[in-house]
């Protein structure tokens, strides 16, 4: 029995958990697929029988870039690194990398997922983007 309704396995819910400092994924009770971001229907077996699982916020950098030309919402941050990590449980995720110089970025380096305490109001203040709390990657 699931305690949360199926509608809860949403991107909005994911970011609500980010605001609590948690990296939460959906796990399919039928086939075991872990979905990050969560999805209301399992794309592997089509089950709607899900549960929330908290992922260990640790992984390794699979690939990265450093962005110098950005949309206007992010212009105050350039240059900023963006990377894709593989978490210890095997799921992959994308995010900005903070607290590391470009010369120290290396494919394979360990990173952890951290969370802003509350939404900074940036960069969404200039736009109609949602004011979600932010997660990011930083050196372990």
């Amino acid at each position, binding site marked *: 029995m699931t305690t949360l309704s199926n509608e809860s396995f949403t991107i909005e819910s994911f970011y609500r958990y980010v605001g609590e400092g948690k990296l939460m994924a959906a796990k399919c009770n039928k086939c075991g697929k872990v979905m990050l971001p969560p999805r209301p229907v399992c794309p592997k077996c089509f089950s709607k029988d899900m549960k929330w699982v908290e992922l260990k916020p640790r992984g390794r950098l699979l690939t990265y*870039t450093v962005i*110098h*030309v*950005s*949309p206007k919402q992010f212009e105050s941050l350039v240059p900023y690194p963006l990377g894709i990590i593989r978490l210890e449980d095997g799921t*992959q995720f994308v995010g900005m990398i903070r607290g590391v110089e470009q010369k120290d970025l290396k494919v394979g380096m360990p990173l952890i997922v951290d969370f802003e305490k509350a939404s900074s109001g940036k960069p969404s203040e200039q736009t109609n983007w949602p004011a979600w709390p932010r997660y990011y990657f930083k050196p372990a």
Partner: protein
Amino acid sequence: MVGKPLASIVSVGISKFGKRDGVYARELFAEAAKEAFERCPNLDPKHDIQALIVGHMGESYEHQGHTGPTLADWAGLTPKAAIRTEAACSSSGVALRIGIFAVLSGLYDTVMVGGVEKMTHRTTADATEFLAMASDYPFEQWNGATFPSLFALMATAHMHKYGTTEEQMARVAVKNHKHGSLNAKAHMQKEITLEQALNSRVVAWPLKLFDCSLITDGASCVVVTKPDVAKKFTDTPVHIVGSGQASGSIGLYEREDFTTLDAARLAANEAYDMAGLKPSDVDVSEVHDCFTIAEIIAYEDLGFCERGKGGKLVEEGVTALGGRLPVNTSGGLKSKGHPVGATGTAQACEMFLQLTGQAERRQVDGAQIGLAHNVGGSGATATVHIFRRG
């Protein structure tokens, strides 16, 4: 055994690509359509063309939606059915496929397929943001991803896994600018040096300015008919003998391997199987070089070389005019320009010109088989079409 034609192209039109101040997308499209009509005197547009299928990515550029009938109107095709397809940078690659379906179904004998985008009147920041809409919003765009950055993530992975170099990527730019210098319709008709490319400013490391295709205004179109009526319009039709399309995850981050586009490999296999052809049969091709790394990955996904050997292929000059397998003779997205909605059919236009011997200074002598590879976003859509001289 070469597969039987699915459909035939009997005429093509392409606007001048470039920074086209003071014109709207619909006016660019009218320019391309007019050229297609003039190229084919036996075609009576109002009588023969039964529907228009057009690729167009973004309403944001001109605050104009509902672009199917808008373009039909300016092309002089009202009241014919007008259908718009949107698949980011592969919008008109998909339109071409729908055009093939349209004549294969038997509903229509002849349709016009095209695409358009008007981009340069907006700032680079705006264009960057509009283009980024073709990526995943709540995780990629939300974290500041841009299109150069997504292909940069692929480039970093390709460099790490296969040892591909920034210099090999720059060689794609040098080659395509050389080809573009031979195309009067290209946006940038000038050659560049390897040093210029390597020393240009960083957009999204490891990609630099000259690794990126151009923000361009332009339109393109082809007239597609049933193969058995093609000769009514021209003695030199080009047959479409293979068509493939596949999808990938909208988020790049979900993929198992960032050094290949699964959708492009699947689309290529579908098209080759349908055509009864293999990669070594291809004489000339247009591939989706939105970024230089994308052309290197395209060589590998299309089977022009082994995985990981794409950088070597451009280094050895195989894909330059005069080489064994010339790629992007038009100048590609890199030099001809990339008005995103127009790109897929612009590739088909180049294949028509090459396979009918009309490619002028960039002609590949005796080309019989052509291929066009069109990618939407970071590979969530890919189409591959194979063409044979009629």
